[in-house]
């Protein structure tokens, strides 16, 4: 490597670029770091000053979180709602994605646009009338009711992800299976499904995360059976600092891990890369 002896504009450019990258990473990582350090510190340390830069690996805060009344129920509700959302959005979204990629039907382009448009409605606009309706039909404050709302949020993504996944599988493969003795269904099961399964999983996990992170509808539509996000929001001003950190940690970690696991497919969905 040659050593630059004069100021080189390209080098300056690289410096600026590098600084920008560091800044952006810090923007995301520093709060995560603080969350991490504080969660794994004893409650006393969390409230004291100065801070240590290394976590104490004390599970005191987490243990306190687990004992906090209603917290575990809320956690369970979150998991149940997110799980149900995941199943519903795949069951509804994947066939729609398959239809979009394999069949031509009138209004296909409009349909695709409509799928995206569902995301254009602000959630409060949906949640408040829904709350009224739910109370009438008795779906309010239930896991199923909230999962249905979260499904409407997650389905557009499920459709778009599976659409791009199905489109990536040549129709020729299915046709080959048909000529080799498959029905439409068995060709799907023997050829398309094995190829698409990782992508379906990714799409399911993404739906899970959408539900897991959602707070507005959860706060409006549940009272007794709060999800973790709604529960934490409700107790935000009254709970001690270490509880907030522990709750935040419990919320952030699964979402982070899942999104990291499926990043390849999310990139594919947005057309960045498909490797």
């Amino acid at each position, binding site marked *: 490597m040659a050593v630059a002896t004069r100021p080189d504009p390209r080098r300056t450019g690289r410096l600026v670029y590098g600084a920008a990258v560091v800044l952006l990473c810090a923007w995301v990582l520093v709060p995560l770091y603080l969350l991490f350090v504080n969660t794994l510190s004893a409650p006393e340390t969390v409230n004291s000053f100065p801070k240590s830069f290394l976590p104490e690996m004390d599970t005191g805060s987490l243990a306190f979180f687990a004992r906090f009344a209603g917290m575990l129920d809320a956690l369970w509700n979150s998991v149940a709602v997110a799980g149900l959302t995941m199943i519903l959005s795949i069951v509804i979204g994947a066939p729609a994605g398959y239809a979009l990629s394999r069949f031509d039907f009138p209004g296909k382009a409009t349909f695709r646009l409509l799928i995206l448009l569902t995301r254009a409605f602000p959630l409060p606009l949906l949640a408040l009338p829904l709350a009224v309706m739910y109370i009438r039909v008795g779906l309010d404050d239930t896991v199923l009711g909230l999962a249905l709302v979260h499904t409407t949020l997650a389905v557009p993504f499920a459709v778009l992800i599976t659409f791009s996944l199905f489109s990536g599988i040549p129709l020729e493969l299915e046709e080959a299976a048909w000529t*080799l003795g498959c029905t439409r269904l068995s060709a799907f099961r023997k050829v398309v499904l094995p190829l698409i399964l990782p992508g379906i999983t990714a799409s399911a996990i993404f739906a899970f995360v959408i539900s897991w992170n959602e707070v507005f509808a959860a706060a409006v539509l549940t009272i007794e059976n709060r999800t973790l996000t709604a529960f934490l929001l409700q107790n935000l001003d009254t709970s001690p600092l270490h509880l907030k950190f522990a709750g935040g940690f419990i919320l952030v970690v699964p979402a982070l891990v899942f999104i990291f696991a499926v990043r390849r497919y999310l990139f594919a969905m947005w057309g960045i890369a498909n490797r």
Partner: protein
Amino acid sequence: MAEIQIRNVAKRFGEYQALRDINLTVADQEFMVLLGASGCGKTTLLRIIAGLETPTEGEVWIGERRVDHLAPRDRGIAMVFQNYAVFPHLTVFENIGFGLRMHRLPDEEVRKRVHRTAELMHIEELLGRYSGELSGGQRQRVAVARALAMEPDVILMDEPLSNLDALLRLEMRAELKGVLAESRTTAIYVTHDQVEAMSLADRISVMHQGRIVQAATPVEVYRNPAEKFVAGFIGNPPMNFLPARSVGEGQWEVAGITLAGPRSDRPGLDFAIRPEDVTPDPAGLAARVRVVEPLGPHLLVTCDVDGHMFRAILDSELSVAPGETLNLMPRPDRIRWFDPETEKAVS
């Protein structure tokens, strides 16, 4: 035993008429090539036989059964696709055995047949690999082996060699011909490459604008094109055409010389001759040479005859230069005549 009959088949995609009034019989164990430029309907016809498209009108019979209402899996066919369609999540072994397993053959039989066809296609050493670890030519072999392993009545091939490089294509072509002759299945093969068609086919069906223009042996298609389109499509370079004017009693005046032709009450016909069927002769057509291309065994000479382009393939020992005038005499037995209005051959 599987003869294929296509009766009055037509296919429309909305307003677009992809196939019109197709009638074709492919004899048992015959190798039939559907030849035509892209968009002529040849792939659509193949897909109708396979059951991947439904005909708008007409019937398809394989053997003694009418099959146009049946799903592909019930037709006793196997198909080789243009892009191979080798399943990427299965090994070569499982790819070749896929159809056999779908038909619930016992494991032992599957193994036997897979090994036999793999041997036939020279891919025994690849059986454990996945499609991603194969070259294009190897994938093609797997695709053919997968079709052959089914021991189908009919094997359908949709431009199977078009994605291979030239040398490999030549090699696979010869191999395919040998393997299919041995397997004794009826074969329908779609291609736009006339050399491929000539070398493989028992009979060629030349297709144009959704119709079968001529279905005959390669030599017949080459020597006696049924329509002007076939004459201008087959052969490299294709036939030369010149307008001919009737001078009565089966005599026709072509670019200043008089030739014997069919007795017809038409005032004019199109005279046609293959480039290799002319010889220098003082009594022949006056041709002004424009371009001379020495191609080794012969010269390809592009000339101007009475304002029309005319190509001749001449002996490479002849010395010709652009600007000179040649006199070229067509071989009388090789001259063909076409009706300028119907474009059909006249004899």
